[in-house]
């Protein structure tokens, strides 16, 4: 008895008797055609069924999951579904597994064929992946497909929340994600060991851990967006946990940034800082804070509705906070320790320069988002950032004025005062313009 109504509805829609009979027959035909050229070797069967599994559950399954939300919105069933008391988590997994249920039905047949063929495969054809324990191999393959499907649902929800749908872009992102995960499975012999927090781990064990970590966060992201769609408040703790755990994951690798190539504290701090710096931009462009959101946040603050305020707070704020903490960590480390263990150019406030540049760019994006246009413009700030980081510094260099580049990006050779002072002043100026624009367009309600 299936207790998840969303899964059951999808099964009724996807798995009709006709499709359940015809699908495996076609699949059987394809697998036989692949094996026709094989001379009493099961290797082509194994490869064929493995590729079919990834294509069917990964690519096609993700596409089915991705379409599940827009189809409901277009057909007008989405509001009816939101009016039911089904829990957001039940809806999330019901959609991921339900929309891709037929793909899983065919995929499992491929996977069984794969394991059958693997049993008969000659020793010399067994690569590092195929030699792994069956349970580990099964877990790796299932996790890859599930991660792709969860990412597809996350992107689909994200497009719905931000009212910008680009199916082609979503498909490309999912394809690259799946291709990267799948191709990373194939490692030469001897199998590399992964060093993480000073421990040496078997590659596939570590890889499965990474996949599960990814799957957890992509599925959690979909769940949180589902909650948002259902008008439920999301505590910012979820995002904080995500960025913190991502930092913990990344800091575990030996970054070889220091003189002795060890995973020193400074190396870890720098790795975390770079990751958080990238996440700041991701949160800034993904969240697209608009004027209404700011007005809402101010009102919630005024009315002391802390839960709503926390839920609506743009996530780039939390990311910037962590960035500042890591910047502080680097500064303190530099002050307390000799600079001998850093092999690059002098850090000298580089972290703070980067921080203030992010602040300036945040204010720039907000300035464009605070226009009267109800749909935030993504392209305009991107063009301006390209001009600021690319075009102007290039022109300055060509004209022999590269010494002024500290105005446009963190310049290693500039003095600390200039390195930090310039982006700080730019951030202040840009923040002034952004606030002025918000006041003009959103402070008063019409």
């Amino acid at each position, binding site marked *: *008895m299936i207790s998840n*109504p*969303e899964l*059951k*509805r999808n099964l*009724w*829609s996807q798995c009709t008797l006709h499709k359940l009979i015809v699908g495996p027959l076609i699949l059987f035909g394809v697998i036989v055609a692949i094996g026709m050229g094989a001379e009493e070797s099961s290797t082509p069967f194994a490869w064929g069924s493995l590729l079919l599994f990834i294509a069917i559950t990964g690519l096609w399954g993700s596409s089915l999951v991705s379409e599940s939300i827009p189809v*409901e919105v277009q*057909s*007008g*069933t*989405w*509001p*009816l*579904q*939101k*009016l*039911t*008391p*089904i*829990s957001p988590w039940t809806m999330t997994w019901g959609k991921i597994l339900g929309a891709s249920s037929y793909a899983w039905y065919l995929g499992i047949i491929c996977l069984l064929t794969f394991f059958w063929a693997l049993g008969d495969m000659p020793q010399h054809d067994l690569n590092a992946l195929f030699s792994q324990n069956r349970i580990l191999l099964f877990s790796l393959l299932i996790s890859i497909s599930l991660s792709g499907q969860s990412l597809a649902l996350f992107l689909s929800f994200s497009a719905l929340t931000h009212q910008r749908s680009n199916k082609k872009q979503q498909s490309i992102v999912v394809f690259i994600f799946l291709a990267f995960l799948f191709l990373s499975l194939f490692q030469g012999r001897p199998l590399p060991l992964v060093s993480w927090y000073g421990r040496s781990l078997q590659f596939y064990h570590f890889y499965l851990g990474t996949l599960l970590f990814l799957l957890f966060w992509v599925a959690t992201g979909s769940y949180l967006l589902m909650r948002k769609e*259902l*008008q*439920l408040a999301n505590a910012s703790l979820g995002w904080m946990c995500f960025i913190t755990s991502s930092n913990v994951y990344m800091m575990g690798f030996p970054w070889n940034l220091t003189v002795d190539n060890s995973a020193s504290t400074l190396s870890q701090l720098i790795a975390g800082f770079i990751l958080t710096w990238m996440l700041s931009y991701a949160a800034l462009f993904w969240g697209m804070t*608009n*004027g*209404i959101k700011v*007005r*809402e946040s101010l*009102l919630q603050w005024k*009315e002391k509705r802390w839960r709503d305020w926390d839920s609506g707070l743009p996530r780039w704020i939390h990311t910037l906070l962590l960035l500042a903490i890591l910047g502080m960590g680097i500064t303190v480390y530099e002050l307390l320790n000799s600079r001998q263990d850093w092999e690059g150019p002098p850090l000298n406030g580089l972290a703070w320069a980067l921080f203030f540049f992010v602040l300036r760019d945040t204010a720039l994006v907000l300035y464009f988002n605070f226009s*009267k246009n*109800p*749909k935030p413009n993504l392209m305009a700030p991107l063009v301006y950032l390209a001009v600021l980081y690319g075009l102007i510094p290039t022109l300055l260099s060509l004209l022999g004025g590269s010494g002024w580049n500290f105005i446009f990006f963190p310049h290693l050779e500039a003095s600390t005062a200039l390195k930090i002072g310039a982006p700080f002043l730019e951030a202040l100026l840009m923040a002034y313009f952004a606030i002025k624009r918000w006041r003009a367009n959103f402070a008063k*309600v*019409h």
Partner: protein
Amino acid sequence: MIKVKNLNFDYPEKRVLKDVAFFIEGGSITALAGPNGAGKTTLLNCLAGLQTPISGNIEINGVSVIDEPRRCHEFLGFLPDNFGLYVDLTVRQCLTYFARAHNIPPNRLESATISIAERLGLIDHMSERAGSLSRGWRQKLGIAQTLIHDPEIIFLDEPASGLDPMARKDLSRFLVELQKEGKTLIVSSHILAELEDYSTHMMIIQDGRLLDPMAVGQHATQSTKILVLELYDIWPPLTDFLSAVDTIDQISIEGTRAQFQFAGDLREQNELLKKLVNRSAPVCALQTLESNLQDSYLEQMKRNDLQS
């Protein structure tokens, strides 16, 4: 039953609900009327927990819709305008899905679906695909899905749009039945004549504001009525006579015809007539002017225009 306080809702370009506040008692059918784009659908969406207002409170059965929208969905049913159906599922599957989604236990699924299908006349269509149903039957299936969990509160947004006159009549009858069972309904529609058939209260929304919140309930429960007195000849003391009666207000006299607001009951109306005859007034008729929902609506709108 439904308590709304200082509700504000913003779209990026403008505020669409402005300090909306009202209270609706249980067991009523409230007509939500207003011009296109006035904020009717947004208000219903907020009431149903599909959209979150920028500020304000909504309480249904003592539960805050803003804080616990999913809990409200247990006792609330909403059929939005332009709703869709799962076209590749049969009527039975559609109903079973919504029954399950509303936490109806497995042992009651069959009886719940059969019961609602019988009420709406869908029982002979249970094996048909939702996509193959005609407009009227699709509407009925939509209503059946909305009511499968027997909600106490029901919101319907333009429920009769696209229905033929016969189906509209059926719908009106069905809504009155629901009201008699103690359900509380809010029905939004452009077509006032349709709302007239079943609504007990009226709420008008214009430009995001609820017009004269006191008007809620006035249409059905008003203790005053408009009386028309017709004489066969001009009677000079008429103005003084009517003005002296406590239960009479807003007198308007044009020749041999007088129209006024009367706050008394039928016995007092009879007394008034007796007094007129005793004073030898040339009375030929005294009748109640039937005021319909449309009149109330237009009157409210006119009053609002004058105030603004």
